Protein backbone atom coordinates (compact mmCIF):
# COMPACT_ATOMS: atom_id res chain seq x y z
CA UNK A 1 0.00 0.00 0.00
CA UNK A 2 1.17 3.51 -0.71
CA UNK A 3 1.48 5.62 2.41
CA UNK A 4 1.21 9.02 0.82
CA UNK A 5 0.54 9.76 -2.83
CA UNK A 6 0.12 13.12 -4.47
CA UNK A 7 -0.57 13.92 -8.08
CA UNK A 8 0.12 17.37 -9.50
CA UNK A 9 -0.68 18.70 -6.06
CA UNK A 10 -0.87 22.49 -6.05
CA UNK A 11 -1.82 24.85 -3.25
CA UNK A 12 -2.20 28.54 -3.86
CA UNK A 13 -3.18 30.61 -0.83
CA UNK A 14 -5.75 33.39 -0.91
CA UNK A 15 -3.13 36.08 -1.33
CA UNK A 16 -1.79 34.42 -4.50
CA UNK A 17 1.16 32.81 -2.75
CA UNK A 18 1.96 29.43 -4.28
CA UNK A 19 2.98 27.12 -1.42
CA UNK A 20 3.06 23.89 -3.39
CA UNK A 21 3.35 23.58 -7.11
CA UNK A 22 2.67 20.51 -9.22
CA UNK A 23 3.98 18.08 -6.61
CA UNK A 24 3.79 14.44 -7.65
CA UNK A 25 5.25 11.95 -5.24
CA UNK A 26 4.47 8.49 -3.87
CA UNK A 27 6.06 7.06 -0.74
CA UNK A 28 5.90 3.63 0.82
CA UNK A 29 5.31 2.94 4.53
CA UNK A 30 8.34 3.38 6.77
CA UNK A 31 10.16 6.41 8.07
CA UNK A 32 9.94 9.21 5.56
CA UNK A 33 12.02 12.32 5.81
CA UNK A 34 10.52 15.48 4.36
CA UNK A 35 13.26 18.04 4.01
CA UNK A 36 13.33 21.56 2.71
CA UNK A 37 14.24 25.03 3.85
CA UNK A 38 11.79 27.10 5.87
CA UNK A 39 8.99 28.15 3.56
CA UNK A 40 9.57 25.27 1.16
CA UNK A 41 6.01 24.04 1.66
CA UNK A 42 6.49 21.34 4.32
CA UNK A 43 3.82 22.67 6.68
CA UNK A 44 1.40 23.23 3.82
CA UNK A 45 1.86 19.62 2.76
CA UNK A 46 1.16 18.44 6.33
CA UNK A 47 -2.03 20.54 6.51
CA UNK A 48 -3.16 19.09 3.19
CA UNK A 49 -2.45 15.58 4.51
CA UNK A 50 -4.63 16.32 7.56
CA UNK A 51 -7.43 17.81 5.48
CA UNK A 52 -6.99 21.18 7.17
CA UNK A 53 -6.48 22.74 3.74
CA UNK A 54 -8.08 21.87 0.42
CA UNK A 55 -5.79 21.49 -2.62
CA UNK A 56 -6.13 24.17 -5.27
CA UNK A 57 -5.39 21.57 -7.95
CA UNK A 58 -4.30 17.97 -8.10
CA UNK A 59 -4.94 15.02 -5.83
CA UNK A 60 -3.66 13.77 -2.50
CA UNK A 61 -4.07 10.42 -0.77
CA UNK A 62 -3.08 9.32 2.73
CA UNK A 63 -3.28 5.63 3.67
CA UNK A 64 -5.38 5.18 0.52
CA UNK A 65 -7.92 7.81 1.65
CA UNK A 66 -8.64 11.30 0.39
CA UNK A 67 -8.18 13.71 3.33
CA UNK A 68 -10.50 16.27 1.75
CA UNK A 69 -13.42 13.85 1.42
CA UNK A 70 -12.77 11.34 4.24
CA UNK A 71 -11.35 13.86 6.70
CA UNK A 72 -12.52 12.09 9.87
CA UNK A 73 -11.34 8.66 8.68
CA UNK A 74 -7.90 10.02 7.83
CA UNK A 75 -7.52 11.93 11.09
CA UNK A 76 -8.54 8.90 13.15
CA UNK A 77 -5.52 7.07 11.72
CA UNK A 78 -3.02 9.92 11.72
CA UNK A 79 -1.21 11.52 14.64
CA UNK A 80 0.13 15.06 14.32
CA UNK A 81 2.88 16.73 16.30
CA UNK A 82 2.99 20.46 15.49
CA UNK A 83 6.16 22.45 15.33
CA UNK A 84 5.19 25.20 17.75
CA UNK A 85 4.27 25.25 21.42
CA UNK A 86 0.86 23.69 21.84
CA UNK A 87 0.64 22.59 25.47
CA UNK A 88 -1.57 24.33 28.06
CA UNK A 89 0.82 25.03 30.94
CA UNK A 90 -1.58 24.35 33.81
CA UNK A 91 -2.63 20.83 32.81
CA UNK A 92 -0.55 17.79 33.65
CA UNK A 93 0.76 15.73 30.76
CA UNK A 94 -1.39 12.78 31.85
CA UNK A 95 -4.59 14.87 31.88
CA UNK A 96 -3.85 16.53 28.55
CA UNK A 97 -2.96 13.35 26.70
CA UNK A 98 -5.98 11.53 28.18
CA UNK A 99 -8.31 14.34 27.11
CA UNK A 100 -6.87 14.42 23.60
CA UNK A 101 -7.17 10.64 23.42
CA UNK A 102 -10.89 11.00 24.10
CA UNK A 103 -11.15 13.65 21.39
CA UNK A 104 -9.60 11.05 19.06
CA UNK A 105 -12.49 8.76 19.91
CA UNK A 106 -11.05 6.52 22.64
CA UNK A 107 -13.41 5.44 25.43
CA UNK A 108 -12.68 7.07 28.80
CA UNK A 109 -10.77 4.28 30.55
CA UNK A 110 -8.90 3.30 27.38
CA UNK A 111 -7.85 6.92 26.90
CA UNK A 112 -6.40 7.01 30.40
CA UNK A 113 -4.51 3.73 29.97
CA UNK A 114 -3.17 4.57 26.55
CA UNK A 115 -2.16 8.05 27.70
CA UNK A 116 0.09 6.70 30.43
CA UNK A 117 1.41 4.04 28.03
CA UNK A 118 2.19 6.65 25.38
CA UNK A 119 3.89 8.86 27.96
CA UNK A 120 5.89 5.88 29.22
CA UNK A 121 7.02 5.05 25.68
CA UNK A 122 8.31 8.57 25.16
CA UNK A 123 10.13 8.39 28.49
CA UNK A 124 7.87 10.32 30.90
CA UNK A 125 7.03 8.45 34.09
CA UNK A 126 6.15 10.02 37.44
CA UNK A 127 6.57 13.54 36.15
CA UNK A 128 3.51 13.07 33.94
CA UNK A 129 1.29 14.15 36.85
CA UNK A 130 2.98 17.52 37.18
CA UNK A 131 1.76 20.60 35.26
CA UNK A 132 3.36 20.87 31.81
CA UNK A 133 4.32 24.51 32.47
CA UNK A 134 7.26 23.35 34.57
CA UNK A 135 8.66 20.95 31.96
CA UNK A 136 11.92 21.37 30.07
CA UNK A 137 11.81 21.80 26.29
CA UNK A 138 12.83 18.18 25.84
CA UNK A 139 10.00 16.95 28.06
CA UNK A 140 7.49 19.16 26.26
CA UNK A 141 8.58 17.73 22.92
CA UNK A 142 8.01 14.26 24.35
CA UNK A 143 4.50 15.18 25.52
CA UNK A 144 3.75 16.52 22.04
CA UNK A 145 4.91 13.22 20.61
CA UNK A 146 2.87 11.23 23.15
CA UNK A 147 -0.36 13.06 22.29
CA UNK A 148 0.20 12.22 18.62
CA UNK A 149 0.68 8.58 19.59
CA UNK A 150 -2.14 8.13 22.11
CA UNK A 151 -4.80 6.89 19.68
CA UNK A 152 -2.45 4.37 18.01
CA UNK A 153 -2.26 5.98 14.57
CA UNK A 154 -0.95 4.26 11.43
CA UNK A 155 0.94 7.37 10.42
CA UNK A 156 2.66 10.04 12.49
CA UNK A 157 3.26 13.50 11.06
CA UNK A 158 6.08 15.14 12.98
CA UNK A 159 6.80 18.77 12.20
CA UNK A 160 10.38 19.60 13.22
CA UNK A 161 10.42 17.26 16.25
CA UNK A 162 13.95 18.26 17.25
CA UNK A 163 13.22 21.99 17.33
CA UNK A 164 14.76 23.74 20.30
CA UNK A 165 16.56 20.66 21.62
CA UNK A 166 20.23 20.46 22.54
CA UNK A 167 22.42 17.92 20.68
CA UNK A 168 21.81 15.16 23.24
CA UNK A 169 18.07 15.87 23.18
CA UNK A 170 18.09 15.74 19.39
CA UNK A 171 19.77 12.36 19.38
CA UNK A 172 17.30 11.02 21.94
CA UNK A 173 14.32 12.33 19.98
CA UNK A 174 15.63 10.88 16.72
CA UNK A 175 16.25 7.53 18.38
CA UNK A 176 12.69 7.60 19.69
CA UNK A 177 11.29 8.38 16.25
CA UNK A 178 13.35 5.58 14.78
CA UNK A 179 12.02 3.18 17.42
CA UNK A 180 8.43 4.18 16.67
CA UNK A 181 9.01 3.60 12.97
CA UNK A 182 10.72 0.25 13.33
CA UNK A 183 9.49 -1.42 16.55
CA UNK A 184 6.00 0.07 16.90
CA UNK A 185 5.10 -0.56 13.28
CA UNK A 186 3.87 3.01 12.78
CA UNK A 187 4.89 4.91 9.67
CA UNK A 188 6.41 8.30 10.33
CA UNK A 189 6.76 11.42 8.24
CA UNK A 190 9.48 13.60 9.78
CA UNK A 191 9.70 17.18 8.61
CA UNK A 192 12.95 18.97 9.04
CA UNK A 193 15.05 21.70 7.57
CA UNK A 194 18.10 19.77 8.73
CA UNK A 195 18.90 17.08 6.20
CA UNK A 196 21.73 15.69 8.30
CA UNK A 197 19.29 14.73 11.03
CA UNK A 198 16.59 12.97 9.10
CA UNK A 199 18.91 11.12 6.74
CA UNK A 200 20.19 9.20 9.76
CA UNK A 201 16.84 7.64 10.57
CA UNK A 202 14.66 7.60 7.47
CA UNK A 203 14.12 4.97 4.78
CA UNK A 204 12.78 7.39 2.22
CA UNK A 205 13.71 10.98 1.63
CA UNK A 206 11.50 13.58 -0.01
CA UNK A 207 13.10 16.92 -0.64
CA UNK A 208 11.09 19.95 -1.64
CA UNK A 209 12.16 23.45 -2.46
CA UNK A 210 9.98 26.44 -3.23
CA UNK A 211 6.93 24.18 -3.30
CA UNK A 212 8.43 21.89 -5.94
CA UNK A 213 9.69 18.36 -5.62
CA UNK A 214 13.46 18.24 -5.67
CA UNK A 215 13.85 14.52 -5.28
CA UNK A 216 12.12 11.56 -3.66
CA UNK A 217 13.81 8.21 -3.34
CA UNK A 218 14.89 5.45 -1.00
CA UNK A 219 17.81 6.62 1.02
CA UNK A 220 19.72 3.49 -0.01
CA UNK A 221 19.29 4.35 -3.68
CA UNK A 222 20.56 7.84 -3.05
CA UNK A 223 23.68 6.91 -1.16
CA UNK A 224 24.71 3.83 -3.15
CA UNK A 225 24.77 5.83 -6.35
CA UNK A 226 27.01 8.38 -4.77
CA UNK A 227 30.21 6.43 -4.34
CA UNK A 228 32.64 8.30 -6.49
CA UNK A 229 36.34 8.11 -7.22
CA UNK A 230 38.11 11.43 -7.12
CA UNK A 231 41.21 11.61 -9.33
CA UNK A 232 43.71 14.39 -9.26
CA UNK A 233 46.72 14.62 -11.52
CA UNK A 234 49.34 17.37 -11.30
CA UNK A 235 49.11 18.04 -15.05
CA UNK A 236 47.25 16.74 -18.09
CA UNK A 237 43.83 16.79 -16.51
CA UNK A 238 42.18 17.43 -19.89
CA UNK A 239 43.97 14.56 -21.59
CA UNK A 240 42.98 12.21 -18.83
CA UNK A 241 39.35 13.35 -18.97
CA UNK A 242 39.27 12.68 -22.73
CA UNK A 243 40.92 9.33 -22.24
CA UNK A 244 38.48 8.26 -19.51
CA UNK A 245 35.53 9.44 -21.55
CA UNK A 246 36.81 7.26 -24.39
CA UNK A 247 36.72 4.32 -21.98
CA UNK A 248 32.96 4.97 -21.51
CA UNK A 249 33.40 6.33 -18.01
CA UNK A 250 31.08 9.28 -17.19
CA UNK A 251 33.55 11.86 -15.97
CA UNK A 252 32.51 14.83 -13.86
CA UNK A 253 34.54 17.86 -12.86
CA UNK A 254 34.96 19.59 -9.57
CA UNK A 255 37.71 22.17 -9.77
CA UNK A 256 40.96 20.30 -10.47
CA UNK A 257 39.34 17.00 -9.57
CA UNK A 258 37.89 14.46 -11.96
CA UNK A 259 34.99 12.54 -10.51
CA UNK A 260 34.25 9.07 -11.78
CA UNK A 261 31.32 7.03 -10.44
CA UNK A 262 32.54 3.80 -8.88
CA UNK A 263 30.82 0.95 -10.69
CA UNK A 264 33.00 -1.89 -9.37
CA UNK A 265 36.65 -2.61 -8.59
CA UNK A 266 37.39 -2.57 -12.32
CA UNK A 267 36.91 1.18 -12.32
CA UNK A 268 40.11 1.55 -10.27
CA UNK A 269 42.07 -0.50 -12.79
CA UNK A 270 40.73 1.45 -15.74
CA UNK A 271 41.69 4.77 -14.18
CA UNK A 272 45.12 3.58 -13.09
CA UNK A 273 45.67 2.10 -16.53
CA UNK A 274 44.74 5.35 -18.24
CA UNK A 275 47.01 7.40 -15.97
CA UNK A 276 49.90 5.00 -16.60
CA UNK A 277 49.37 5.01 -20.37
CA UNK A 278 49.37 8.82 -20.51
CA UNK A 279 52.31 8.84 -18.09
CA UNK A 280 50.76 11.49 -15.88
CA UNK A 281 51.87 12.33 -12.32
CA UNK A 282 49.01 10.96 -10.21
CA UNK A 283 48.44 13.19 -7.21
CA UNK A 284 45.64 11.31 -5.59
CA UNK A 285 42.97 8.75 -6.18
CA UNK A 286 40.43 8.18 -3.45
CA UNK A 287 36.93 6.98 -2.90
CA UNK A 288 34.32 9.40 -1.65
CA UNK A 289 31.05 8.60 -0.10
CA UNK A 290 28.74 11.48 -0.82
CA UNK A 291 26.40 12.60 1.87
CA UNK A 292 22.90 13.13 0.66
CA UNK A 293 23.27 16.84 1.30
CA UNK A 294 25.89 17.13 -1.43
CA UNK A 295 23.56 15.40 -3.82
CA UNK A 296 20.93 18.02 -3.27
CA UNK A 297 23.45 20.81 -3.27
CA UNK A 298 24.69 19.74 -6.72
CA UNK A 299 21.18 19.51 -8.08
CA UNK A 300 20.33 22.91 -6.77
CA UNK A 301 23.37 24.39 -8.44
CA UNK A 302 22.48 22.80 -11.75
CA UNK A 303 18.97 24.28 -11.44
CA UNK A 304 20.30 27.74 -10.89
Amino acid at each position, binding site marked *: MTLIATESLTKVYGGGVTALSDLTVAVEPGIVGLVGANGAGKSTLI*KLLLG*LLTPTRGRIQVLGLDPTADTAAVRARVGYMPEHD*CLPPDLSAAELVTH*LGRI*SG*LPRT*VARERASEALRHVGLHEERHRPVGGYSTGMKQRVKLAQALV*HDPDLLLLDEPTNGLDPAGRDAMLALVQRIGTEF*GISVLVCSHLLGEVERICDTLVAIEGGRLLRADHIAAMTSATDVLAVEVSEGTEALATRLAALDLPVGREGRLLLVPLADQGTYDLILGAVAELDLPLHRLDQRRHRVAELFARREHSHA
Partner: protein
Amino acid sequence: MPEPTGVIHDIGYQRYTGPRLGRRHVFGALYLHGVRTAFGLGRSAKAKIFPWLVVGIVLLVAAAVTAIRSQIGEVIMTYAQFADAMSWLVIFFVAVAAPELVSRDMRSGVLPLYFSRPLPHADYPLAKLLALATALFLLLGAPQLLMFLGGAFTADGMGAVWDELLDLLPGLLYAGLWAVVFSSVGLLIASLTGKRAFAAGGIVAVFLMTTPIVGILTVLPSQTANQLAGIASPPTLVQGVGLWTMRDLLVTEANTADLDLGPFGPVYALAAVALVAGCVALLLARYKKVAAR
Protein backbone atom coordinates in the same frame (compact mmCIF):
# COMPACT_ATOMS: atom_id res chain seq x y z
CA MET B 1 7.99 -6.14 55.31
CA PRO B 2 7.42 -8.58 52.48
CA GLU B 3 9.99 -8.60 49.74
CA PRO B 4 8.74 -7.15 46.48
CA THR B 5 8.16 -10.13 44.24
CA GLY B 6 6.68 -8.43 41.21
CA VAL B 7 8.87 -7.89 38.19
CA ILE B 8 8.11 -5.12 35.77
CA HIS B 9 8.19 -6.40 32.22
CA ASP B 10 8.50 -3.99 29.38
CA ILE B 11 5.78 -5.42 27.20
CA GLY B 12 6.59 -3.03 24.40
CA TYR B 13 4.17 -1.13 22.28
CA GLN B 14 0.61 -2.43 22.07
CA ARG B 15 -1.53 -1.69 19.03
CA TYR B 16 -5.12 -0.67 19.78
CA THR B 17 -7.83 -2.74 18.14
CA GLY B 18 -10.78 -1.71 20.32
CA PRO B 19 -13.64 0.60 19.42
CA ARG B 20 -13.15 4.16 18.25
CA LEU B 21 -16.16 6.24 19.23
CA GLY B 22 -17.97 8.52 16.85
CA ARG B 23 -18.69 12.21 16.63
CA ARG B 24 -21.43 12.21 19.30
CA HIS B 25 -19.13 10.79 21.97
CA VAL B 26 -16.26 13.08 21.05
CA PHE B 27 -18.63 16.06 21.26
CA GLY B 28 -19.86 14.79 24.62
CA ALA B 29 -16.31 14.46 25.96
CA LEU B 30 -15.46 18.00 24.90
CA TYR B 31 -18.75 19.32 26.32
CA LEU B 32 -18.28 17.70 29.74
CA HIS B 33 -14.68 18.87 29.85
CA GLY B 34 -16.03 22.38 29.17
CA VAL B 35 -18.61 22.29 31.96
CA ARG B 36 -15.94 21.10 34.38
CA THR B 37 -13.56 23.83 33.19
CA ALA B 38 -16.20 26.54 33.74
CA PHE B 39 -16.33 25.56 37.42
CA GLY B 40 -12.57 25.11 37.67
CA LEU B 41 -12.81 21.34 38.14
CA GLY B 42 -9.70 19.50 37.03
CA ARG B 43 -7.83 22.79 37.26
CA SER B 44 -5.61 24.38 39.86
CA ALA B 45 -7.05 25.54 43.18
CA LYS B 46 -6.66 29.13 42.00
CA ALA B 47 -8.99 28.50 39.07
CA LYS B 48 -11.66 27.21 41.45
CA ILE B 49 -11.81 30.29 43.71
CA PHE B 50 -13.91 32.62 41.59
CA PRO B 51 -16.51 30.21 40.17
CA TRP B 52 -17.20 28.72 43.57
CA LEU B 53 -17.33 32.15 45.21
CA VAL B 54 -20.11 33.07 42.78
CA VAL B 55 -21.85 29.73 43.33
CA GLY B 56 -21.59 30.33 47.10
CA ILE B 57 -23.13 33.80 46.84
CA VAL B 58 -26.11 32.76 44.70
CA LEU B 59 -26.83 29.78 46.94
CA LEU B 60 -26.53 31.99 50.02
CA VAL B 61 -28.97 34.51 48.55
CA ALA B 62 -31.38 31.70 47.68
CA ALA B 63 -31.09 30.27 51.19
CA ALA B 64 -31.67 33.70 52.74
CA VAL B 65 -34.70 34.36 50.54
CA THR B 66 -36.12 30.97 51.47
CA ALA B 67 -35.47 31.48 55.16
CA ILE B 68 -37.07 34.93 55.24
CA ARG B 69 -40.06 33.63 53.33
CA SER B 70 -40.60 30.80 55.78
CA GLN B 71 -40.36 33.23 58.70
CA ILE B 72 -42.56 36.10 57.56
CA GLY B 73 -44.61 34.08 55.08
CA GLU B 74 -44.14 36.58 52.27
CA VAL B 75 -42.51 36.05 48.88
CA ILE B 76 -39.78 38.64 48.67
CA MET B 77 -38.33 37.36 45.39
CA THR B 78 -39.98 35.21 42.72
CA TYR B 79 -38.04 32.58 40.86
CA ALA B 80 -37.89 34.72 37.73
CA GLN B 81 -36.84 37.78 39.69
CA PHE B 82 -33.93 35.80 41.07
CA ALA B 83 -32.21 35.70 37.68
CA ASP B 84 -32.66 39.45 37.26
CA ALA B 85 -31.31 40.13 40.71
CA MET B 86 -28.22 38.02 40.01
CA SER B 87 -27.43 39.57 36.62
CA TRP B 88 -24.21 41.25 37.81
CA LEU B 89 -22.89 38.00 39.17
CA VAL B 90 -23.81 36.22 35.94
CA ILE B 91 -21.91 38.82 33.95
CA PHE B 92 -18.80 38.39 36.09
CA PHE B 93 -19.11 34.62 35.92
CA VAL B 94 -19.25 34.77 32.10
CA ALA B 95 -16.31 37.17 32.06
CA VAL B 96 -14.20 34.59 33.90
CA ALA B 97 -15.55 31.33 32.47
CA ALA B 98 -15.70 32.23 28.75
CA PRO B 99 -12.00 33.19 28.49
CA GLU B 100 -11.16 30.10 30.53
CA LEU B 101 -13.01 27.99 27.95
CA VAL B 102 -11.73 29.47 24.68
CA SER B 103 -9.07 32.18 25.13
CA ARG B 104 -6.83 29.82 27.09
CA ASP B 105 -6.83 27.27 24.25
CA MET B 106 -6.06 29.98 21.74
CA ARG B 107 -3.20 31.31 23.82
CA SER B 108 -1.52 27.97 24.51
CA GLY B 109 -1.70 26.97 20.83
CA VAL B 110 -3.50 23.73 21.67
CA LEU B 111 -6.09 24.22 18.91
CA PRO B 112 -4.04 22.46 16.19
CA LEU B 113 -4.13 19.39 18.44
CA TYR B 114 -7.95 19.51 18.41
CA PHE B 115 -8.40 20.32 14.75
CA SER B 116 -6.00 17.60 13.60
CA ARG B 117 -8.32 15.08 15.26
CA PRO B 118 -11.61 13.70 13.92
CA LEU B 119 -13.49 16.71 15.29
CA PRO B 120 -15.39 18.86 12.77
CA HIS B 121 -14.40 22.49 13.19
CA ALA B 122 -17.94 23.53 14.14
CA ASP B 123 -18.09 21.01 16.98
CA TYR B 124 -15.40 22.67 19.04
CA PRO B 125 -17.14 26.06 19.46
CA LEU B 126 -20.58 24.46 19.75
CA ALA B 127 -19.46 22.12 22.54
CA LYS B 128 -17.86 25.05 24.37
CA LEU B 129 -20.99 27.18 23.90
CA LEU B 130 -23.23 24.44 25.18
CA ALA B 131 -20.89 23.94 28.14
CA LEU B 132 -20.96 27.63 29.09
CA ALA B 133 -24.75 27.82 28.68
CA THR B 134 -25.09 24.73 30.89
CA ALA B 135 -22.82 26.24 33.53
CA LEU B 136 -24.87 29.47 33.57
CA PHE B 137 -28.11 27.57 33.71
CA LEU B 138 -26.85 25.54 36.65
CA LEU B 139 -25.67 28.74 38.32
CA LEU B 140 -29.15 30.30 38.06
CA GLY B 141 -31.23 27.13 38.21
CA ALA B 142 -29.70 25.42 41.25
CA PRO B 143 -30.56 28.27 43.66
CA GLN B 144 -34.10 28.35 42.28
CA LEU B 145 -34.37 24.64 42.96
CA LEU B 146 -33.18 25.32 46.52
CA MET B 147 -35.87 28.02 46.87
CA PHE B 148 -38.45 25.62 45.49
CA LEU B 149 -37.51 22.88 47.93
CA GLY B 150 -37.70 25.37 50.79
CA GLY B 151 -41.06 26.62 49.58
CA ALA B 152 -42.41 23.13 48.97
CA PHE B 153 -41.56 21.92 52.49
CA THR B 154 -43.21 24.88 54.15
CA ALA B 155 -46.25 24.84 51.82
CA ASP B 156 -49.55 23.51 53.14
CA GLY B 157 -50.92 20.75 50.94
CA MET B 158 -50.08 19.37 47.52
CA GLY B 159 -51.99 22.13 45.78
CA ALA B 160 -49.60 24.74 47.10
CA VAL B 161 -46.63 22.67 46.01
CA TRP B 162 -48.15 22.42 42.52
CA ASP B 163 -48.59 26.22 42.40
CA GLU B 164 -45.01 26.57 43.53
CA LEU B 165 -43.87 24.29 40.68
CA LEU B 166 -45.84 26.33 38.16
CA ASP B 167 -43.93 29.38 39.40
CA LEU B 168 -40.59 27.56 39.24
CA LEU B 169 -40.82 26.31 35.65
CA PRO B 170 -41.08 29.77 34.00
CA GLY B 171 -38.29 30.86 36.32
CA LEU B 172 -36.08 28.06 35.00
CA LEU B 173 -37.00 28.91 31.41
CA TYR B 174 -36.04 32.50 32.10
CA ALA B 175 -32.73 31.30 33.56
CA GLY B 176 -32.25 29.33 30.33
CA LEU B 177 -32.78 32.51 28.30
CA TRP B 178 -30.17 34.33 30.38
CA ALA B 179 -27.81 31.42 29.91
CA VAL B 180 -28.20 31.23 26.13
CA VAL B 181 -27.91 34.98 25.48
CA PHE B 182 -25.01 35.58 27.85
CA SER B 183 -23.01 32.54 26.83
CA SER B 184 -23.27 33.21 23.09
CA VAL B 185 -22.25 36.86 23.45
CA GLY B 186 -19.55 36.10 26.01
CA LEU B 187 -18.01 33.21 24.11
CA LEU B 188 -17.89 35.17 20.85
CA ILE B 189 -15.99 38.01 22.52
CA ALA B 190 -13.63 35.60 24.28
CA SER B 191 -12.91 33.75 21.03
CA LEU B 192 -11.46 36.91 19.51
CA THR B 193 -8.41 37.06 21.76
CA GLY B 194 -5.95 34.72 23.41
CA LYS B 195 -5.41 37.09 26.33
CA ARG B 196 -7.79 36.19 29.11
CA ALA B 197 -7.64 39.60 30.77
CA PHE B 198 -8.59 41.32 27.50
CA ALA B 199 -11.40 38.87 26.93
CA ALA B 200 -12.78 39.34 30.43
CA GLY B 201 -12.58 43.13 30.08
CA GLY B 202 -14.25 42.99 26.69
CA ILE B 203 -17.13 40.92 28.01
CA VAL B 204 -17.77 43.17 30.99
CA ALA B 205 -17.49 46.21 28.70
CA VAL B 206 -20.05 44.92 26.22
CA PHE B 207 -22.52 44.02 28.93
CA LEU B 208 -22.08 47.10 31.08
CA MET B 209 -21.04 49.85 28.68
CA THR B 210 -24.21 49.35 26.70
CA THR B 211 -26.26 50.17 29.80
CA PRO B 212 -25.72 53.97 29.48
CA ILE B 213 -27.09 53.74 25.92
CA VAL B 214 -30.25 52.29 27.35
CA GLY B 215 -30.28 55.10 29.88
CA ILE B 216 -29.95 57.78 27.20
CA LEU B 217 -32.65 56.19 25.05
CA THR B 218 -35.08 56.05 27.96
CA VAL B 219 -34.87 59.78 28.58
CA LEU B 220 -35.33 60.77 24.94
CA PRO B 221 -38.59 62.64 24.27
CA SER B 222 -39.79 59.95 21.83
CA GLN B 223 -41.96 57.31 23.49
CA THR B 224 -41.02 54.70 20.84
CA ALA B 225 -37.33 55.23 21.58
CA ASN B 226 -38.05 54.82 25.29
CA GLN B 227 -39.94 51.61 24.78
CA LEU B 228 -37.29 50.13 22.46
CA ALA B 229 -34.37 51.30 24.64
CA GLY B 230 -33.86 47.93 26.34
CA ILE B 231 -32.78 46.30 23.09
CA ALA B 232 -29.52 48.23 23.17
CA SER B 233 -28.02 46.15 25.98
CA PRO B 234 -28.09 42.38 26.49
CA PRO B 235 -29.26 42.41 30.14
CA THR B 236 -32.19 44.74 29.45
CA LEU B 237 -32.96 42.86 26.25
CA VAL B 238 -33.36 39.65 28.25
CA GLN B 239 -35.44 41.45 30.87
CA GLY B 240 -37.64 42.82 28.09
CA VAL B 241 -38.32 39.36 26.74
CA GLY B 242 -39.07 38.23 30.29
CA LEU B 243 -41.47 41.12 30.88
CA TRP B 244 -43.28 40.39 27.65
CA THR B 245 -43.70 36.67 28.29
CA MET B 246 -44.25 36.57 32.08
CA ARG B 247 -45.00 40.02 33.40
CA ASP B 248 -46.89 38.59 36.39
CA LEU B 249 -43.85 36.78 37.66
CA LEU B 250 -41.36 39.61 37.19
CA VAL B 251 -43.48 42.57 38.28
CA THR B 252 -44.70 42.29 41.84
CA GLU B 253 -45.65 44.87 44.43
CA ALA B 254 -42.25 44.65 45.99
CA ASN B 255 -40.43 45.03 42.69
CA THR B 256 -41.79 47.14 39.89
CA ALA B 257 -39.92 46.95 36.64
CA ASP B 258 -38.59 50.25 35.32
CA LEU B 259 -38.73 49.00 31.73
CA ASP B 260 -41.83 49.96 29.76
CA LEU B 261 -42.10 47.89 26.60
CA GLY B 262 -45.25 49.34 25.14
CA PRO B 263 -46.37 47.19 22.22
CA PHE B 264 -42.82 46.10 21.37
CA GLY B 265 -42.58 42.84 23.34
CA PRO B 266 -42.31 40.68 20.19
CA VAL B 267 -39.57 42.98 18.90
CA TYR B 268 -37.55 42.22 22.03
CA ALA B 269 -38.03 38.49 21.48
CA LEU B 270 -36.98 38.77 17.83
CA ALA B 271 -33.98 40.88 18.78
CA ALA B 272 -32.91 38.27 21.33
CA VAL B 273 -33.19 35.47 18.77
CA ALA B 274 -31.30 37.54 16.21
CA LEU B 275 -28.56 38.36 18.74
CA VAL B 276 -28.01 34.71 19.64
CA ALA B 277 -28.16 33.56 16.01
CA GLY B 278 -25.74 36.29 14.96
CA CYS B 279 -23.26 35.46 17.73
CA VAL B 280 -23.36 31.74 16.95
CA ALA B 281 -22.88 32.38 13.22
CA LEU B 282 -19.90 34.65 13.89
CA LEU B 283 -18.47 32.13 16.34
CA LEU B 284 -18.67 29.35 13.74
CA ALA B 285 -17.11 31.59 11.09
CA ARG B 286 -14.34 32.49 13.52
CA TYR B 287 -13.47 28.86 14.18
CA LYS B 288 -13.66 27.90 10.53
CA LYS B 289 -10.85 30.39 10.02
CA VAL B 290 -8.92 29.36 13.11
CA ALA B 291 -9.08 25.65 12.23
CA ALA B 292 -7.29 26.11 8.91
CA ARG B 293 -4.30 27.80 10.51
